[in-house]
């Protein structure tokens, strides 16, 4: 009798596990088939040789990794890091006050403001980049408006500054949203308490709001940095391909140079940098 009673919950647990498995399986399948398997392939290509017509010749080599530390490619990675870091910094400087102000708005304005932040995402990325070209090109809108005022024309396109502008424009919402959710979640009583204890508004911000929103800052920075670092469309279209980012280099290895193994090695290096950043972010978020 007793053993029977004990045994009874077991099927339910098993049923729950089965249920969990059933509900998880689409997600798991997706991750395994579309993330882990391709990632495994990319990883395996890094130790083989380039085929004459693309593809991979399965002969072991470490040449791809020795090529990676060539100053030429390190320079490209460094350049990408710099551009992505600059973009992230500016995004933070613009994004933080924006998120802070949105969080202070009355609730119906909040929704409207958030929709306004996300709105550009509803348009195709390439079209938005093209819009920048039409705005900034030699005979573009900005220059013709300046021309009416007797100024210009200026070289507004195809600089590193244009690349940063394009990246900033594209990924700023990814900075604002996590910051907003971090700031909005803060208990207003904390700020009241701080004020009651005699802190000025600035001190309250510095000592209460800012430290508590650090996880949001880290998430936002990561969200902007990661896609900026690997981007290749913006350097090509807004930068006129005059400076190379690591994304361009990877794309060229596959589509122009027919060198899949080296392209894979570059991709692996990119992933390694990003994983390192994720670890730093997780560590910093836990300490914050």
């Amino acid at each position: 009798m007793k053993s029977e009673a004990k045994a009874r919950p077991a099927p339910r647990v098993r049923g729950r596990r089965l249920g969990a498995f059933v509900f998880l399986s689409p997600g798991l399948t997706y991750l395994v088939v579309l993330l882990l398997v391709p990632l495994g392939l990319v990883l395996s290509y890094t130790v083989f040789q380039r085929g004459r017509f693309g593809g991979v010749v399965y002969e072991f080599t470490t040449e791809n990794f020795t090529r990676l530390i060539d100053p030429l490619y390190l320079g490209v990675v460094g350049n990408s890091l710099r551009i992505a870091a600059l973009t992230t910094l500016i995004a933070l400087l613009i994004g933080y006050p924006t998120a802070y102000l949105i969080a202070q708005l009355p609730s119906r304005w909040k929704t409207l403001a958030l929709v306004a932040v996300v709105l550009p995402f509803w348009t195709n990325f390439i079209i938005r980049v093209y819009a920048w070209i039409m705005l900034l090109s030699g005979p573009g809108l900005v220059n013709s408006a300046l021309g009416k005022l007797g100024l210009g024309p200026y070289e507004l396109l195809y600089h590193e500054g244009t690349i940063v502008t394009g990246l900033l424009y594209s990924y700023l919402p990814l900075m604002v949203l996590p910051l907003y959710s971090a700031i909005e979640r803060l208990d207003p009583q904390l700020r009241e308490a701080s004020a009651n204890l005699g802190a000025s508004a600035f001190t309250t911000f510095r000592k209460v709001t800012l430290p508590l929103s650090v996880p949001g800052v880290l998430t936002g920075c990561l969200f902007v940095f990661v896609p900026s670092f690997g981007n290749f469309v913006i350097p090509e279209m807004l930068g006129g391909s005059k400076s190379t980012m690591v994304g361009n280099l990877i794309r060229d290895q596959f589509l122009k140079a027919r060198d899949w193994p080296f392209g894979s090695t570059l991709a692996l290096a990119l992933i390694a940098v990003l994983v390192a950043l994720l670890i730093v972010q997780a560590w910093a978020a836990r300490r914050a």
Partner: protein
Amino acid sequence: MSRIRFTRRLPAAVAAAGLALAVAACGGESSNSSDGATAAAAEELKPNADLSKQSLQVTVWDGYTPKELPEKAKEKLKVSEVKVGLHATNEEAMAKLTASGDSGIDVAFVSGQYAQALNEQGLLEPIHAELVPNLANLYPEAGQLSYDKGNKYSVPYTWGTTGICYRTDLVKSVPTSWNDLLKPPAWADKKVTMMTTERWLALPALKLLGYSVNTDKDEEIAKAKELLLAAKPHLLAYDDTTFGDKLVSGEAVMVEAWDGWCPTTEKNIKFAVPKEGSDLWVDTMVIMKSSKNKEAAHALINYILDPEIHSWAAENINYKVPNKAAMERVKAPEGSLLGIKPAELLDGESIIDLGQASTKYTRLSSEVTAQS
């Protein structure tokens, strides 16, 4: 010759690549129901083989042949089926054709240097001229292409060259030399573009220095690099796909361009081949050695060389075809480049496949574009 030719804009090229992938994924099955064709020696083809027992699988760039080609060819040649698969780039075609096992492809459209490489690997069936009487329609020059003299394993479909495409109303003097692009005069400073696609990035510098576009000598490539780096600060941008747009909008006044991409039918836009010379690119049709439908494959190539069919490319996609009879049918629109003479084209140097040495050009292009 280009990576993503014909599709003129990046988004279109991306879409085409996606489409080609989808087609590649769906296609693939090709019924090789022929008995008569698989004679022991591939060299012995029967001129009167029963084509109704043969079916054809073709791979070609999107939009490069008439849409109705499969149906029309099937009807005309009385073959059991003609299927057309698409590739976006030469690289993609090579991946299909050199994959292990039978690709199932009978006829492929690839650029000349790729046909050369395929032939070096022993993957191509020699062209049996007696099965392609329409070869007589080609210009004599079409048999003198340096990668395949005498059309032994490839039949040219389109050809052209690379030069400077410019705005007649915005230049102060007509460009005549690659120097005009590499060291632009003050009025063109920051108003010129060059290509980054490896071999065409190097071409203006190599030609200006009097070297071959197929050089694999390190010191020659290094000299070209110096010129290209010196030119970089004077460029508006590097552009492989939208240089025509930049010219039309007036952002650029001179651009390095493939003739078929230079929008000369627009007002004020003209094309010049610099005096130092240029390249001659050719897109060809080849028959795979693995094909089990070789008689039908020859019949298809013969059919495409029919002036009525071959002129389609000149009339609709603005590419010159090496077919005299076809070109004589074409009414070239105002300003069109279709009038460039075959003999002038043949002055250009064919780009050939460099095998392992091609990585030198990859490096050159990375070094030049990464330099700030």
